[in-house]
């Protein structure tokens, strides 16, 4: 029995190892291809070059795309935190009859796939003339990111003892001062966690941005999709070069994020 258990354990580790190897293979393949001069069916390309990065930069208008991506991501982080912070405070501290309903409402944009509500949302945004603009992309991305901010912040508020607020109020602080001097400084770790999760999610969020963005408001991942889809027209190496630039952006953000965030928090969905 114990021998069977050991084989079982080995099989599990082999599977996880295989999955990771497979993942690294996929990522490395993109990386090697981006630096290849030409690459046909050999283990490694014969010659390496960086020309595809210059090609991608000038042909895909990447300076502008990167600018839009950074602007959208930062705007979404700031706005989602501003909208979500007070709501998270109330949901963490108060109990009221409509609370389960409210939690469900905030939860829906995270649960329902973006393609399902993205099409009516994009239609609405286009009807009011914001569709296709950078503002439209920000507004659309906020729909899942405000709830994300709320659900990430709630446990951080729950950790702060209400006695601190009452104490401050006893000392004569008004509500604004309690907020500014007590709640804001004490939830800095929570704000940081939420900001990083929103940042990574916004940069890599495809569906909503894809449905709402126009020619001048594409983010990096949407531009990558269009060029990958036009694979036959673009040299595959240049698309891979762009993919590497996207990957680097996300990985840098991820590395920063993982200094403050547990990896399992990145899959935040339920609980």
């Amino acid at each position, binding site marked *: 029995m114990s021998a069977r258990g050991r084989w079982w*354990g080995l099989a*599990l580790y082999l*599977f996880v190892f295989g999955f*990771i190897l*497979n*993942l*690294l*293979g*996929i*990522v490395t*393949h*993109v990386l090697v291809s981006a630096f290849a001069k030409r*690459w046909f069916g*050999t283990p490694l390309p014969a010659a390496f070059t960086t020309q595809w990065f210059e090609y991608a930069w000038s042909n895909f208008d990447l300076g502008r795309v990167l600018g839009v991506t950074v602007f959208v991501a930062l705007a979404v982080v700031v706005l989602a935190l501003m*909208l979500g912070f*007070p*709501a998270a*405070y*109330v949901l963490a501290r*108060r*109990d*009221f*009859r409509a609370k389960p309903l*409210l939690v469900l*409402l*905030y939860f829906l*944009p995270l*649960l329902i*796939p973006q*393609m*399902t*509500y993205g*099409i*009516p949302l994009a*239609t*609405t945004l286009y009807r009011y003339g914001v569709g296709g603009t950078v503002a439209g992309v920000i507004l*659309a991305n906020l729909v899942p990111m*405000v709830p994300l901010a709320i659900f990430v912040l709630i446990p951080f508020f729950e950790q702060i*003892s*209400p006695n601190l607020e009452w104490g401050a*109020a*006893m000392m004569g602080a008004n509500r604004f001062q309690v907020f500014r001097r007590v709640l804001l400084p004490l939830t800095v770790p929570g704000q940081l966690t939420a900001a990083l999760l929103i940042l990574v999610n916004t940069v*890599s*969020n*495809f*569906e909503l941005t894809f449905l709402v963005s126009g020619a001048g408001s594409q983010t990096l*991942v949407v531009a990558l*999709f269009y060029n*990958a*889809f036009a694979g036959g027209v673009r040299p595959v190496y240049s698309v891979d070069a762009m*993919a590497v630039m*996207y*990957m680097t952006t*996300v990985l840098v953000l*991820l590395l920063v994020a993982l200094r403050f965030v547990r*990896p*399992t928090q990145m*899959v935040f*969905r*339920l609980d």
Partner: protein
Amino acid sequence: MSSRAAESSPAAAGTRRLREPGALDTTAIVCLLPSLLYVLVMFVYPFLYGIYSSLRPAQRAGLSVANYLAFFTDEWQYRTVWITFGIAVPNTIVVVTVALLVAYGMRRGIRFERTITTVLVLPISLGVILLAEGILGFYGGRGWFNQMLLASGLVAEPLTLTHNYTGVMLSLFMQQFPFCFLMLLGYISGVDPGLENSARTLGAGPFTVFRRVMLPLIAPGIVIAFALVFVMSFGVFPSAILLGQPAGATRTIAIAAYQQAFERYDMSYASAIAVVMGLFQLAGLVVIILLRRRMVTAATMGVGKR
């Protein structure tokens, strides 16, 4: 704890009343209002308007179900429902089963846990587009995977793994397995190991422990995993385009809705397809939750009989 503290504090009289369910003071309402308004205006309103607009086809005046009739009578369109089920159902079963096996095997803690979870988070953070681009290269006709197969002599000709059904399944598995695994691991490692030890002491074998002790305890987690993976797979869009045949074998319902909206500019029809997609996702959720009810009842009945 906090409510007891409130009772003993001098400011309790006012505060405690507010803490009772049902009462919300102005501050709380002011705090909730911005985000609530945002969700109502940007999520609920477009959703409801989408349903309304799907019932108002462009060609005729007044309310009608013409869009839905058009969808369910046009084979090119209603076929997408079967195609999507054909992708989502097998993918959900495979992803949850494999993730459950692996997570269950690792419930006592893993070696290199932080490294493994970090690497598993990669595909989630990198996003589906980069993954698709990588799979196109790695599993493509001239990619490393086929090179290895050819070199090892397992196949005489490269396998076609991209631009078809297999490609979409590969991409969905890569995307959803880590998510599902980490979620189930959270549920399973939350079960008190003492329960399993007691069952073993009382003579239960590993399989009995799983079936009689662990499965009933982690059933809610498994149901949630099934539901989430199914709903996510049913909305499959970018990988069905990049790795599949968007004009044929993997033309999913999301692609149909997108084409109607942004290639034909028929927003009313597109909304109808989006509503159909949402209803099927809802139906999937309901079926999974009902199955779970029956499963739990059966388990309790079994215990009762003994």
